[in-house]
């Protein structure tokens, strides 16, 4: 599905009037930035579940989602800055949205480092959840910052309610890319959380049965 969206986007979609062909990066850039935020939200929900109801699984999910989030945020930042070279003439701008995405990346790294630095894993789980919940304040700032400071970024191109400022011939491949990347990341998440859960619960009976 991801492949379909990309092939459609790369090969068949028309040129953008202003930006020329370089806009084709959008099919990687926009989905990855969307998921960079979504994964963090997911982690925050898990963190809440872990802290309030003491669901162990939630902490495992955070731990396995964080590297994926860091990866996809990195891809988003990277593709964005490459896209910036032909369009804005600069690869980096201290623009609010880029900055807050960078902060998001740092948050992911912080979560991972925090978890990695404790020998008592249950303690690490709880502290990590606290950090994740505090960090979720960051996401509205990313969203709002576009309005607070006038920036280079075009405002969000796809709106749920009706009129989109993007042509269907570009919109469809973009949507398909988003969904496709979603599935890709979910399968990746399942894989890595499986290995993590197995390694954490290695003393339990069901794990032995499973293997």
């Amino acid at each position: 599905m991801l492949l379909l969206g990309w092939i459609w986007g790369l090969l068949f979609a028309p040129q953008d009037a202003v930006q020329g062909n370089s806009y084709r990066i959008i099919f990687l850039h926009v989905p990855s930035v969307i998921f960079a935020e979504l994964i963090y939200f997911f982690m925050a929900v898990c963190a809440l579940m872990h802290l309030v109801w003491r669901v162990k699984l939630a902490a495992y999910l955070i731990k396995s989602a964080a590297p994926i989030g860091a990866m996809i945020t990195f891809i988003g930042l990277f593709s964005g800055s490459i896209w910036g070279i032909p369009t804005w003439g600069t690869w980096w701008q201290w623009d609010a949205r880029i900055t807050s995405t960078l902060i998001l990346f740092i948050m992911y790294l912080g979560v991972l480092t925090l978890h990695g630095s404790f020998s008592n894993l249950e303690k690490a789980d709880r502290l990590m959840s606290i950090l994740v919940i505090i960090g979720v304040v960051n996401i509205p700032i990313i969203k709002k910052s576009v309005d607070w400071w006038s920036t280079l970024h075009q405002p969000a191109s796809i709106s749920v309610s009706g009129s989109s400022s993007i042509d269907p011939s570009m919109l469809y491949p973009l949507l398909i890319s988003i969904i496709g990347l979603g599935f890709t990341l979910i399968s990746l998440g399942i894989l890595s959380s499986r290995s993590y859960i197995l390694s954490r619960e290695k003393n339990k009976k069901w794990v032995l049965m499973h293997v």
Partner: protein
Amino acid sequence: MKLFSVQNITYSINENKLFHNLSFEINSGEGLHIKGGNGSGKSTLLRIILGITSPSKGLIQSYDQDLKISYLGHKNAIKNYLTPIENLELLFSGDDLNVAFEWLNKFGLSHVQDELTASLSFGQQKKLALIRVLAQSSDLLILDEPFVGLDQATADQLNSFLAQKISQNAGLILTSHITPMIDCAVLDLGAKNA
């Protein structure tokens, strides 16, 4: 009078069980000596009783909410950039402070009372930490390895103080590798974790 009851405590860390289904009671006027090899969970058990660490399973029941507990842990909880006098002033006020100063004399620390605690020897620091515990008026003493690093004279002083405390109807729990000279029930956690 019952002070605490420990019911079916299980504690595991990173899926390793330290102890399993442990139950006992702590009464006032009684001592309990917890024995066991290195890493058998003595200190952890004390911390669970204190409520600092929460057990994986089981229940700690306290029968008196206003129970005054003094605790000596592995860590001395004294500030090594302050002098012994300043340390005590930070912790005590009023009559307790006088009691603390008396202990300072009894333990023979009065000649170093104005030096920085960091420059004191291990045993002297341990004595200072003991004073922090001994000068509190408390109903239950929980001491983690109180005899380590003490000379014979101080150990004797500590023993007689603890005996006196028990006769005054206070409770006592301590971990130690050497047997204290006090009437104590003994709880043995075994050589190592099974």
